[in-house]
Protein backbone atom coordinates (compact mmCIF):
# COMPACT_ATOMS: atom_id res chain seq x y z
CA UNK A 1 0.00 0.00 0.00
CA UNK A 2 1.58 3.21 -1.17
CA UNK A 3 1.08 6.62 0.36
CA UNK A 4 2.45 9.91 -0.87
CA UNK A 5 4.35 11.91 1.74
CA UNK A 6 3.36 15.54 1.16
CA UNK A 7 6.52 17.23 2.45
CA UNK A 8 9.13 14.62 1.57
CA UNK A 9 7.39 14.50 -1.83
CA UNK A 10 8.02 10.81 -2.30
CA UNK A 11 5.73 7.77 -2.25
CA UNK A 12 6.41 5.23 0.48
CA UNK A 13 5.01 1.90 1.52
CA UNK A 14 2.75 2.40 4.56
CA UNK A 15 3.48 -1.10 5.88
CA UNK A 16 7.22 -0.44 5.69
CA UNK A 17 6.88 2.80 7.67
CA UNK A 18 4.65 1.14 10.28
CA UNK A 19 7.09 -1.78 10.65
CA UNK A 20 9.93 0.68 11.00
CA UNK A 21 8.06 2.61 13.68
CA UNK A 22 7.21 -0.61 15.52
CA UNK A 23 10.85 -1.73 15.44
CA UNK A 24 12.20 1.67 16.54
CA UNK A 25 9.58 1.90 19.30
CA UNK A 26 10.24 -1.68 20.42
CA UNK A 27 13.99 -1.09 20.71
CA UNK A 28 13.43 2.25 22.42
CA UNK A 29 11.08 0.68 24.96
CA UNK A 30 13.35 -2.29 25.53
CA UNK A 31 16.50 -0.27 26.10
CA UNK A 32 14.75 2.57 27.89
CA UNK A 33 15.95 5.16 25.40
CA UNK A 34 14.05 7.78 23.43
CA UNK A 35 14.55 6.03 20.13
CA UNK A 36 15.45 9.05 17.98
CA UNK A 37 18.92 7.57 17.60
CA UNK A 38 17.43 4.52 15.91
CA UNK A 39 14.35 5.96 14.19
CA UNK A 40 16.11 8.84 12.39
CA UNK A 41 18.81 6.70 10.71
CA UNK A 42 16.22 4.05 9.76
CA UNK A 43 14.15 6.73 8.03
CA UNK A 44 17.25 7.85 6.11
CA UNK A 45 18.04 4.26 5.14
CA UNK A 46 14.65 3.81 3.47
CA UNK A 47 15.20 6.94 1.40
CA UNK A 48 13.65 9.80 3.38
CA UNK A 49 15.85 12.88 2.81
CA UNK A 50 18.04 13.44 5.92
CA UNK A 51 16.63 16.93 6.62
CA UNK A 52 13.07 15.59 6.67
CA UNK A 53 13.99 12.46 8.65
CA UNK A 54 15.53 14.64 11.39
CA UNK A 55 12.70 17.17 11.69
CA UNK A 56 9.97 14.53 11.53
CA UNK A 57 11.74 12.52 14.23
CA UNK A 58 11.66 15.48 16.61
CA UNK A 59 7.91 15.55 16.05
CA UNK A 60 7.64 11.86 16.99
CA UNK A 61 9.88 12.37 20.04
CA UNK A 62 7.35 14.83 21.53
CA UNK A 63 4.77 12.07 21.50
CA UNK A 64 7.05 9.37 22.93
CA UNK A 65 8.30 11.72 25.66
CA UNK A 66 4.92 13.04 26.81
CA UNK A 67 3.78 9.47 27.22
CA UNK A 68 6.78 8.62 29.38
CA UNK A 69 6.60 11.94 31.24
CA UNK A 70 2.99 11.36 32.31
CA UNK A 71 3.98 8.02 33.84
CA UNK A 72 6.94 9.63 35.66
CA UNK A 73 4.82 12.54 36.89
CA UNK A 74 2.36 10.10 38.42
CA UNK A 75 5.24 8.51 40.34
CA UNK A 76 6.49 11.96 41.36
CA UNK A 77 9.91 11.43 39.78
CA UNK A 78 10.35 14.85 38.19
CA UNK A 79 12.42 17.78 39.50
CA UNK A 80 10.30 20.47 37.92
CA UNK A 81 12.45 23.39 39.13
CA UNK A 82 15.55 21.88 37.53
CA UNK A 83 13.42 21.01 34.50
CA UNK A 84 12.58 24.66 33.86
CA UNK A 85 16.25 25.69 33.89
CA UNK A 86 16.97 22.93 31.40
CA UNK A 87 14.06 24.12 29.27
CA UNK A 88 15.50 27.65 29.15
CA UNK A 89 18.85 26.37 27.89
CA UNK A 90 17.21 23.82 25.63
CA UNK A 91 15.03 26.43 23.97
CA UNK A 92 18.12 28.51 23.26
CA UNK A 93 20.06 25.50 22.02
CA UNK A 94 17.35 24.12 19.77
CA UNK A 95 16.75 27.59 18.30
CA UNK A 96 20.48 27.86 17.54
CA UNK A 97 20.36 24.32 16.13
CA UNK A 98 17.50 25.12 13.76
CA UNK A 99 19.37 28.23 12.59
CA UNK A 100 22.48 26.16 11.86
CA UNK A 101 20.19 23.70 10.07
CA UNK A 102 18.81 26.53 7.95
CA UNK A 103 22.25 27.78 6.97
CA UNK A 104 23.33 24.24 6.05
CA UNK A 105 20.17 23.73 4.03
CA UNK A 106 20.78 26.99 2.17
CA UNK A 107 24.35 26.09 1.31
CA UNK A 108 23.25 22.55 0.42
CA UNK A 109 25.41 20.78 2.99
CA UNK A 110 22.66 19.55 5.34
CA UNK A 111 22.33 16.14 3.67
CA UNK A 112 25.98 15.42 4.26
CA UNK A 113 26.36 17.03 7.71
CA UNK A 114 23.55 14.99 9.30
CA UNK A 115 25.04 11.56 8.42
CA UNK A 116 28.49 12.87 9.38
CA UNK A 117 27.33 13.99 12.85
CA UNK A 118 25.60 10.63 13.25
CA UNK A 119 28.73 8.68 12.34
CA UNK A 120 30.78 10.67 14.86
CA UNK A 121 28.26 10.32 17.71
CA UNK A 122 27.15 6.75 17.04
CA UNK A 123 30.75 5.67 16.51
CA UNK A 124 32.10 7.16 19.73
CA UNK A 125 29.11 6.20 21.87
CA UNK A 126 28.85 2.62 20.65
CA UNK A 127 32.57 1.95 20.95
CA UNK A 128 32.76 3.45 24.46
CA UNK A 129 29.69 1.47 25.50
CA UNK A 130 31.04 -1.71 23.96
CA UNK A 131 34.35 -1.44 25.82
CA UNK A 132 32.60 -0.65 29.12
CA UNK A 133 30.15 -3.52 28.73
CA UNK A 134 32.79 -6.08 27.78
CA UNK A 135 34.84 -5.02 30.81
CA UNK A 136 31.87 -5.37 33.15
CA UNK A 137 30.93 -8.75 31.70
CA UNK A 138 34.52 -9.99 31.96
CA UNK A 139 34.72 -8.77 35.53
CA UNK A 140 31.57 -10.62 36.48
CA UNK A 141 32.34 -13.84 34.64
CA UNK A 142 36.09 -14.27 35.02
CA UNK A 143 36.88 -11.94 37.89
CA UNK A 144 39.27 -9.86 35.80
CA UNK A 145 39.60 -6.36 37.13
CA UNK A 146 40.93 -3.27 35.49
CA UNK A 147 42.56 -0.45 37.35
CA UNK A 148 40.10 2.37 37.39
CA UNK A 149 41.79 5.42 35.97
CA UNK A 150 41.27 8.45 38.12
CA UNK A 151 39.90 11.05 35.77
CA UNK A 152 41.67 14.02 37.29
CA UNK A 153 40.69 16.42 34.52
CA UNK A 154 37.02 15.68 35.07
CA UNK A 155 37.47 16.11 38.85
CA UNK A 156 39.09 19.49 38.26
CA UNK A 157 36.19 20.53 36.05
CA UNK A 158 33.71 19.61 38.75
CA UNK A 159 35.74 21.67 41.27
CA UNK A 160 35.57 24.67 38.97
CA UNK A 161 31.85 24.23 38.51
CA UNK A 162 31.36 24.37 42.27
CA UNK A 163 32.91 27.85 42.33
CA UNK A 164 30.57 29.30 39.69
CA UNK A 165 28.27 32.15 40.79
CA UNK A 166 24.46 32.05 41.09
CA UNK A 167 24.23 28.88 43.14
CA UNK A 168 20.64 27.70 43.52
CA UNK A 169 19.20 24.98 45.74
CA UNK A 170 16.98 22.37 44.11
CA UNK A 171 14.87 20.78 46.86
CA UNK A 172 13.55 17.81 44.88
CA UNK A 173 17.01 16.60 43.90
CA UNK A 174 18.55 17.99 47.09
CA UNK A 175 21.46 19.60 45.26
CA UNK A 176 22.91 23.08 45.07
CA UNK A 177 24.40 24.08 41.76
CA UNK A 178 25.09 27.21 39.73
CA UNK A 179 22.26 27.81 37.27
CA UNK A 180 24.88 28.21 34.52
CA UNK A 181 25.59 24.48 34.62
CA UNK A 182 22.13 23.13 33.62
CA UNK A 183 21.68 25.99 31.14
CA UNK A 184 25.01 25.46 29.36
CA UNK A 185 24.52 21.67 29.25
CA UNK A 186 21.02 21.99 27.79
CA UNK A 187 22.11 24.57 25.19
CA UNK A 188 24.61 22.03 23.85
CA UNK A 189 22.09 19.20 23.87
CA UNK A 190 19.38 21.44 22.35
CA UNK A 191 21.61 22.07 19.33
CA UNK A 192 21.95 18.30 18.83
CA UNK A 193 18.18 17.81 19.18
CA UNK A 194 17.62 20.12 16.21
CA UNK A 195 20.51 18.79 14.12
CA UNK A 196 20.08 15.07 14.76
CA UNK A 197 16.39 14.54 15.47
CA UNK A 198 17.11 12.90 18.82
CA UNK A 199 15.77 13.63 22.28
CA UNK A 200 19.28 13.84 23.67
CA UNK A 201 18.58 11.65 26.72
CA UNK A 202 21.74 9.66 26.00
CA UNK A 203 23.74 12.80 26.88
CA UNK A 204 21.33 14.49 29.29
CA UNK A 205 21.03 11.55 31.69
CA UNK A 206 24.80 11.00 32.16
CA UNK A 207 25.23 14.78 32.52
CA UNK A 208 22.57 14.87 35.24
CA UNK A 209 24.16 11.99 37.13
CA UNK A 210 27.85 12.86 36.81
CA UNK A 211 27.87 16.65 36.53
CA UNK A 212 24.71 17.83 38.29
CA UNK A 213 24.84 14.85 40.71
CA UNK A 214 21.09 14.41 40.72
CA UNK A 215 19.66 11.23 42.31
CA UNK A 216 19.20 8.55 39.64
CA UNK A 217 15.51 8.01 40.49
CA UNK A 218 14.72 11.52 39.28
CA UNK A 219 16.90 11.88 36.16
CA UNK A 220 14.68 10.00 33.70
CA UNK A 221 11.53 11.95 34.57
CA UNK A 222 13.32 15.30 34.57
CA UNK A 223 15.02 14.51 31.26
CA UNK A 224 11.65 13.63 29.70
CA UNK A 225 10.18 16.86 31.11
CA UNK A 226 12.69 19.03 29.26
CA UNK A 227 12.62 16.87 26.10
CA UNK A 228 8.87 17.49 25.66
CA UNK A 229 9.45 21.25 25.58
CA UNK A 230 12.63 21.20 23.51
CA UNK A 231 11.34 18.74 20.93
CA UNK A 232 8.18 20.86 20.64
CA UNK A 233 10.24 24.00 20.09
CA UNK A 234 12.49 22.26 17.56
CA UNK A 235 9.54 20.78 15.65
CA UNK A 236 7.72 24.12 15.52
CA UNK A 237 10.82 26.00 14.34
CA UNK A 238 11.71 23.35 11.76
CA UNK A 239 8.18 23.60 10.36
CA UNK A 240 8.30 27.40 10.21
CA UNK A 241 11.87 28.03 9.02
CA UNK A 242 12.81 24.93 7.07
CA UNK A 243 9.47 23.31 6.06
CA UNK A 244 10.93 19.89 6.81
CA UNK A 245 8.29 18.38 9.15
CA UNK A 246 6.23 15.77 7.31
CA UNK A 247 3.05 15.46 9.36
CA UNK A 248 1.85 12.30 7.56
CA UNK A 249 5.15 10.52 8.14
CA UNK A 250 5.21 11.77 11.75
CA UNK A 251 1.70 10.48 12.39
CA UNK A 252 2.55 6.98 11.09
CA UNK A 253 5.72 6.92 13.18
CA UNK A 254 3.96 8.18 16.32
CA UNK A 255 1.26 5.51 16.22
CA UNK A 256 3.52 2.59 15.36
CA UNK A 257 6.35 3.46 17.72
CA UNK A 258 3.92 3.99 20.62
CA UNK A 259 2.68 0.42 20.14
CA UNK A 260 6.21 -0.91 19.66
CA UNK A 261 7.41 0.82 22.83
CA UNK A 262 4.75 -0.91 24.93
CA UNK A 263 5.96 -4.35 23.87
CA UNK A 264 9.59 -3.32 24.10
CA UNK A 265 9.18 -2.19 27.70
CA UNK A 266 7.68 -5.55 28.65
CA UNK A 267 10.51 -7.50 27.03
CA UNK A 268 13.02 -5.14 28.61
CA UNK A 269 12.01 -6.18 32.13
CA UNK A 270 13.04 -9.79 31.45
CA UNK A 271 16.47 -9.22 29.96
CA UNK A 272 19.44 -8.51 32.23
CA UNK A 273 21.00 -5.05 32.02
CA UNK A 274 24.50 -6.06 30.91
CA UNK A 275 23.56 -8.18 27.94
CA UNK A 276 21.06 -5.51 26.96
CA UNK A 277 23.82 -2.89 26.94
CA UNK A 278 25.93 -5.21 24.82
CA UNK A 279 23.15 -5.66 22.27
CA UNK A 280 22.42 -1.92 22.22
CA UNK A 281 26.05 -0.99 21.67
CA UNK A 282 26.35 -3.53 18.85
CA UNK A 283 23.15 -2.22 17.32
CA UNK A 284 24.32 1.40 17.45
CA UNK A 285 27.65 0.33 15.96
CA UNK A 286 25.83 -1.43 13.10
CA UNK A 287 23.78 1.72 12.42
CA UNK A 288 27.01 3.73 12.43
CA UNK A 289 28.59 1.41 9.85
CA UNK A 290 25.49 1.56 7.64
CA UNK A 291 25.54 5.34 7.94
CA UNK A 292 29.12 5.33 6.62
CA UNK A 293 27.74 3.82 3.42
CA UNK A 294 25.25 6.69 3.15
CA UNK A 295 28.12 9.11 3.57
CA UNK A 296 30.28 7.45 0.92
CA UNK A 297 27.48 6.71 -1.54
CA UNK A 298 28.05 8.11 -5.02
CA UNK A 299 25.46 10.65 -6.22
CA UNK A 300 23.17 9.61 -9.12
CA UNK A 301 25.00 12.03 -11.37
CA UNK A 302 27.81 14.55 -11.15
CA UNK A 303 25.42 17.46 -11.50
CA UNK A 304 22.25 17.74 -9.41
CA UNK A 305 19.33 19.87 -10.56
CA UNK A 306 16.88 21.28 -8.05
CA UNK A 307 13.82 23.42 -8.58
CA UNK A 308 13.80 26.22 -6.04
CA UNK A 309 10.51 26.79 -4.28
Amino acid at each position, binding site marked *: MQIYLPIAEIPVNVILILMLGLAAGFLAGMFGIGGGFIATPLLMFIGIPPAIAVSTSTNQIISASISGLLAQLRKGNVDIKMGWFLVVGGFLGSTIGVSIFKILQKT*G*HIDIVIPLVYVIFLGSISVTMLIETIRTLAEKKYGITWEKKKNSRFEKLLKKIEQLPWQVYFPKSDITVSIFVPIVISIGIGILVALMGVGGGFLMIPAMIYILRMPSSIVVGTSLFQIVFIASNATFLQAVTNHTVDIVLAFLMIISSAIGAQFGTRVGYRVDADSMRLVLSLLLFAVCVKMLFVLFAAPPSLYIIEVLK
Partner: protein
Amino acid sequence: MIRLRLRYSAIYSLLALFLWSANSFASPVISGISTNEINIDHKFLGAQILLFGAKGDAGNIVIAVRGPKKNFLVTRKQKLLGVWYNGERVKFKDAYSFYSLFSTFGPQDPLDSELSEMELGNDNLKFSASGDIGEKAKNEFQIQLIDQMEKNSLYSAGTQRIDFLDETLFKVMLNFPKNIARGTYTVEIYLIHEGSVLSFQSIPIYVNQVGMSAKIFDFAHEESFFYGLIAVALALVVGWLANYLFARFLGK
Protein backbone atom coordinates in the same frame (compact mmCIF):
# COMPACT_ATOMS: atom_id res chain seq x y z
CA MET B 1 -12.14 31.04 -7.75
CA ILE B 2 -9.94 33.45 -9.62
CA ARG B 3 -8.22 30.60 -11.39
CA LEU B 4 -11.57 29.08 -12.30
CA ARG B 5 -12.83 32.35 -13.71
CA LEU B 6 -9.63 32.77 -15.66
CA ARG B 7 -9.98 29.30 -17.08
CA TYR B 8 -13.53 29.97 -18.28
CA SER B 9 -12.60 33.31 -19.74
CA ALA B 10 -9.80 31.58 -21.62
CA ILE B 11 -12.17 28.99 -23.02
CA TYR B 12 -14.63 31.69 -24.03
CA SER B 13 -11.98 33.73 -25.74
CA LEU B 14 -10.81 30.61 -27.55
CA LEU B 15 -14.37 29.93 -28.65
CA ALA B 16 -14.77 33.52 -29.79
CA LEU B 17 -11.54 33.25 -31.75
CA PHE B 18 -12.79 30.10 -33.41
CA LEU B 19 -16.11 31.64 -34.44
CA TRP B 20 -14.53 34.84 -35.55
CA SER B 21 -11.87 33.14 -37.63
CA ALA B 22 -14.35 30.69 -39.14
CA ASN B 23 -16.55 33.56 -40.27
CA SER B 24 -13.98 35.92 -41.64
CA PHE B 25 -11.27 33.48 -42.83
CA ALA B 26 -8.88 36.15 -41.60
CA SER B 27 -6.66 33.84 -39.61
CA PRO B 28 -4.43 31.66 -41.78
CA VAL B 29 -4.16 29.03 -39.03
CA ILE B 30 -6.58 27.94 -36.33
CA SER B 31 -6.19 25.22 -33.78
CA GLY B 32 -7.58 23.79 -30.58
CA ILE B 33 -6.64 21.26 -27.93
CA SER B 34 -8.47 18.31 -26.42
CA THR B 35 -8.33 19.68 -22.87
CA ASN B 36 -7.16 22.80 -21.08
CA GLU B 37 -6.53 21.11 -17.80
CA ILE B 38 -4.20 18.56 -16.27
CA ASN B 39 -4.82 17.43 -12.69
CA ILE B 40 -1.90 15.90 -10.84
CA ASP B 41 -2.62 13.54 -7.99
CA HIS B 42 -0.35 10.99 -6.30
CA LYS B 43 -1.11 8.43 -8.99
CA PHE B 44 -0.31 10.81 -11.86
CA LEU B 45 1.87 9.15 -14.49
CA GLY B 46 1.84 11.86 -17.14
CA ALA B 47 -0.71 13.23 -19.57
CA GLN B 48 -1.25 13.55 -23.29
CA ILE B 49 -3.11 16.39 -24.93
CA LEU B 50 -4.13 16.33 -28.57
CA LEU B 51 -3.62 19.54 -30.54
CA PHE B 52 -5.36 19.84 -33.88
CA GLY B 53 -5.61 22.64 -36.37
CA ALA B 54 -6.04 23.81 -39.92
CA LYS B 55 -3.72 25.92 -41.99
CA GLY B 56 -5.11 28.17 -44.73
CA ASP B 57 -1.97 29.78 -46.07
CA ALA B 58 1.43 28.79 -47.29
CA GLY B 59 4.19 28.72 -44.71
CA ASN B 60 5.70 26.67 -41.97
CA ILE B 61 4.04 25.90 -38.68
CA VAL B 62 5.94 26.08 -35.41
CA ILE B 63 4.34 24.95 -32.15
CA ALA B 64 6.01 25.71 -28.84
CA VAL B 65 4.79 24.52 -25.43
CA ARG B 66 6.25 26.45 -22.52
CA GLY B 67 5.86 25.56 -18.84
CA PRO B 68 5.84 28.07 -15.97
CA LYS B 69 9.18 29.72 -15.28
CA LYS B 70 11.06 28.50 -12.22
CA ASN B 71 14.37 29.10 -10.54
CA PHE B 72 16.78 26.22 -10.93
CA LEU B 73 19.81 25.35 -8.89
CA VAL B 74 22.52 23.29 -10.54
CA THR B 75 25.08 21.78 -8.19
CA ARG B 76 28.30 20.06 -9.12
CA LYS B 77 29.15 17.19 -6.77
CA GLN B 78 32.70 17.00 -5.51
CA LYS B 79 34.59 14.28 -3.73
CA LEU B 80 36.68 14.76 -0.61
CA LEU B 81 38.25 11.68 0.99
CA GLY B 82 35.59 9.55 -0.64
CA VAL B 83 32.71 11.68 0.60
CA TRP B 84 30.58 13.41 -2.03
CA TYR B 85 29.61 16.93 -1.14
CA ASN B 86 28.15 19.92 -2.91
CA GLY B 87 30.73 21.90 -4.84
CA GLU B 88 30.07 24.87 -7.10
CA ARG B 89 26.42 25.87 -7.56
CA VAL B 90 24.80 28.07 -10.18
CA LYS B 91 21.29 29.44 -9.88
CA PHE B 92 19.32 30.00 -13.08
CA LYS B 93 16.52 32.50 -12.73
CA ASP B 94 13.19 32.19 -14.56
CA ALA B 95 14.01 29.23 -16.77
CA TYR B 96 11.19 27.26 -18.39
CA SER B 97 10.20 24.23 -16.33
CA PHE B 98 8.91 22.62 -19.52
CA TYR B 99 9.70 23.21 -23.17
CA SER B 100 8.63 21.31 -26.23
CA LEU B 101 8.88 22.33 -29.90
CA PHE B 102 7.21 21.03 -33.07
CA SER B 103 7.70 22.40 -36.55
CA THR B 104 7.29 21.74 -40.24
CA PHE B 105 10.75 23.09 -40.94
CA GLY B 106 12.94 20.32 -42.23
CA PRO B 107 16.18 19.43 -40.51
CA GLN B 108 18.09 21.28 -43.24
CA ASP B 109 16.09 24.48 -43.00
CA PRO B 110 17.79 26.81 -40.57
CA LEU B 111 15.44 28.19 -37.94
CA ASP B 112 16.44 31.77 -38.56
CA SER B 113 17.30 34.60 -36.22
CA GLU B 114 13.71 35.63 -35.77
CA LEU B 115 12.97 32.26 -34.15
CA SER B 116 15.91 32.70 -31.87
CA GLU B 117 14.48 36.01 -30.65
CA MET B 118 11.19 34.32 -29.82
CA GLU B 119 13.10 31.59 -27.98
CA LEU B 120 11.98 28.90 -30.39
CA GLY B 121 14.21 25.87 -30.27
CA ASN B 122 16.29 24.36 -27.47
CA ASP B 123 19.43 26.09 -28.69
CA ASN B 124 17.64 29.42 -28.62
CA LEU B 125 16.43 29.28 -25.01
CA LYS B 126 17.88 32.10 -22.97
CA PHE B 127 19.18 31.40 -19.49
CA SER B 128 20.18 33.99 -16.96
CA ALA B 129 22.43 32.89 -14.15
CA SER B 130 22.27 34.88 -10.96
CA GLY B 131 25.41 35.96 -9.18
CA ASP B 132 28.81 36.79 -10.55
CA ILE B 133 30.00 33.81 -12.54
CA GLY B 134 32.08 33.61 -15.67
CA GLU B 135 30.72 32.81 -19.13
CA LYS B 136 32.57 29.50 -19.14
CA ALA B 137 31.04 28.30 -15.87
CA LYS B 138 27.62 29.51 -16.94
CA ASN B 139 27.82 27.51 -20.17
CA GLU B 140 29.02 24.40 -18.39
CA PHE B 141 26.13 24.45 -15.90
CA GLN B 142 23.60 25.50 -18.54
CA ILE B 143 24.50 22.48 -20.70
CA GLN B 144 24.02 20.24 -17.67
CA LEU B 145 20.65 21.82 -16.88
CA ILE B 146 19.36 21.31 -20.43
CA ASP B 147 20.81 17.80 -20.49
CA GLN B 148 19.05 16.80 -17.25
CA MET B 149 15.80 18.40 -18.36
CA GLU B 150 15.95 16.40 -21.59
CA LYS B 151 16.66 13.21 -19.66
CA ASN B 152 13.58 13.90 -17.52
CA SER B 153 11.51 14.48 -20.69
CA LEU B 154 10.87 18.07 -19.61
CA TYR B 155 12.71 19.57 -22.57
CA SER B 156 12.34 17.82 -25.88
CA ALA B 157 15.55 17.48 -27.77
CA GLY B 158 15.44 19.22 -31.12
CA THR B 159 12.25 19.70 -33.09
CA GLN B 160 9.48 17.17 -33.37
CA ARG B 161 7.41 16.59 -36.50
CA ILE B 162 3.84 17.73 -37.06
CA ASP B 163 1.43 15.16 -38.55
CA PHE B 164 -0.59 16.34 -41.53
CA LEU B 165 -3.84 14.53 -42.32
CA ASP B 166 -4.15 16.32 -45.66
CA GLU B 167 -3.01 19.65 -47.12
CA THR B 168 -4.55 21.75 -44.37
CA LEU B 169 -5.41 19.63 -41.33
CA PHE B 170 -2.70 18.80 -38.84
CA LYS B 171 -2.41 17.23 -35.40
CA VAL B 172 0.20 16.92 -32.70
CA MET B 173 0.27 14.86 -29.54
CA LEU B 174 1.62 16.92 -26.62
CA ASN B 175 3.29 14.70 -24.03
CA PHE B 176 3.56 15.80 -20.42
CA PRO B 177 5.68 13.54 -18.20
CA LYS B 178 4.78 12.70 -14.59
CA ASN B 179 7.24 15.18 -13.10
CA ILE B 180 5.80 18.38 -14.58
CA ALA B 181 5.51 21.46 -12.40
CA ARG B 182 2.11 22.91 -11.69
CA GLY B 183 1.14 26.28 -13.11
CA THR B 184 0.00 27.76 -16.38
CA TYR B 185 1.49 26.39 -19.58
CA THR B 186 1.12 28.07 -22.95
CA VAL B 187 0.84 26.41 -26.32
CA GLU B 188 1.93 28.84 -29.04
CA ILE B 189 1.14 28.18 -32.68
CA TYR B 190 3.00 30.23 -35.29
CA LEU B 191 2.63 30.34 -39.04
CA ILE B 192 5.89 31.55 -40.49
CA HIS B 193 6.43 32.42 -44.11
CA GLU B 194 9.66 33.78 -45.55
CA GLY B 195 10.95 34.90 -42.20
CA SER B 196 7.84 36.71 -41.01
CA VAL B 197 5.09 35.57 -38.65
CA LEU B 198 1.77 35.52 -40.51
CA SER B 199 -0.30 34.22 -37.64
CA PHE B 200 0.09 33.62 -33.95
CA GLN B 201 -2.22 31.87 -31.53
CA SER B 202 -1.70 31.12 -27.83
CA ILE B 203 -3.66 28.53 -25.84
CA PRO B 204 -3.23 28.09 -22.07
CA ILE B 205 -3.11 24.74 -20.27
CA TYR B 206 -3.66 24.73 -16.51
CA VAL B 207 -1.70 22.14 -14.58
CA ASN B 208 -3.14 21.75 -11.09
CA GLN B 209 -2.15 19.64 -8.17
CA VAL B 210 -5.16 17.97 -6.56
CA GLY B 211 -5.67 15.68 -3.59
CA MET B 212 -4.86 15.69 0.09
CA SER B 213 -1.07 15.74 -0.15
CA ALA B 214 -1.12 18.86 -2.34
CA LYS B 215 -3.33 20.59 0.23
CA ILE B 216 -1.01 19.61 3.08
CA PHE B 217 2.01 20.81 1.10
CA ASP B 218 0.39 24.18 0.41
CA PHE B 219 -0.70 24.56 4.02
CA ALA B 220 2.79 23.69 5.32
CA HIS B 221 4.36 26.36 3.12
CA GLU B 222 1.74 29.09 3.25
CA GLU B 223 0.59 28.72 6.86
CA SER B 224 3.76 27.29 8.34
CA PHE B 225 3.04 28.88 11.75
CA PHE B 226 -0.22 26.96 12.15
CA TYR B 227 1.21 23.87 10.50
CA GLY B 228 3.98 23.84 13.12
CA LEU B 229 1.48 24.29 15.95
CA ILE B 230 -0.72 21.49 14.61
CA ALA B 231 2.26 19.13 14.26
CA VAL B 232 3.23 19.75 17.90
CA ALA B 233 -0.37 19.53 19.18
CA LEU B 234 -0.99 16.31 17.27
CA ALA B 235 2.07 14.68 18.80
CA LEU B 236 1.11 15.82 22.32
CA VAL B 237 -2.47 14.58 22.02
CA VAL B 238 -1.58 11.23 20.46
CA GLY B 239 1.19 10.69 23.01
CA TRP B 240 -1.16 11.44 25.88
CA LEU B 241 -3.86 9.25 24.37
CA ALA B 242 -1.46 6.35 23.88
CA ASN B 243 -0.36 6.62 27.50
CA TYR B 244 -3.97 6.70 28.69
CA LEU B 245 -5.15 3.81 26.52
CA PHE B 246 -2.23 1.52 27.32
CA ALA B 247 -2.48 2.26 31.03
CA ARG B 248 -6.18 1.53 30.95
CA PHE B 249 -6.37 -1.56 28.78
CA LEU B 250 -2.99 -3.20 29.18
CA GLY B 251 -2.02 -2.05 32.64
CA LYS B 252 1.50 -1.02 33.57
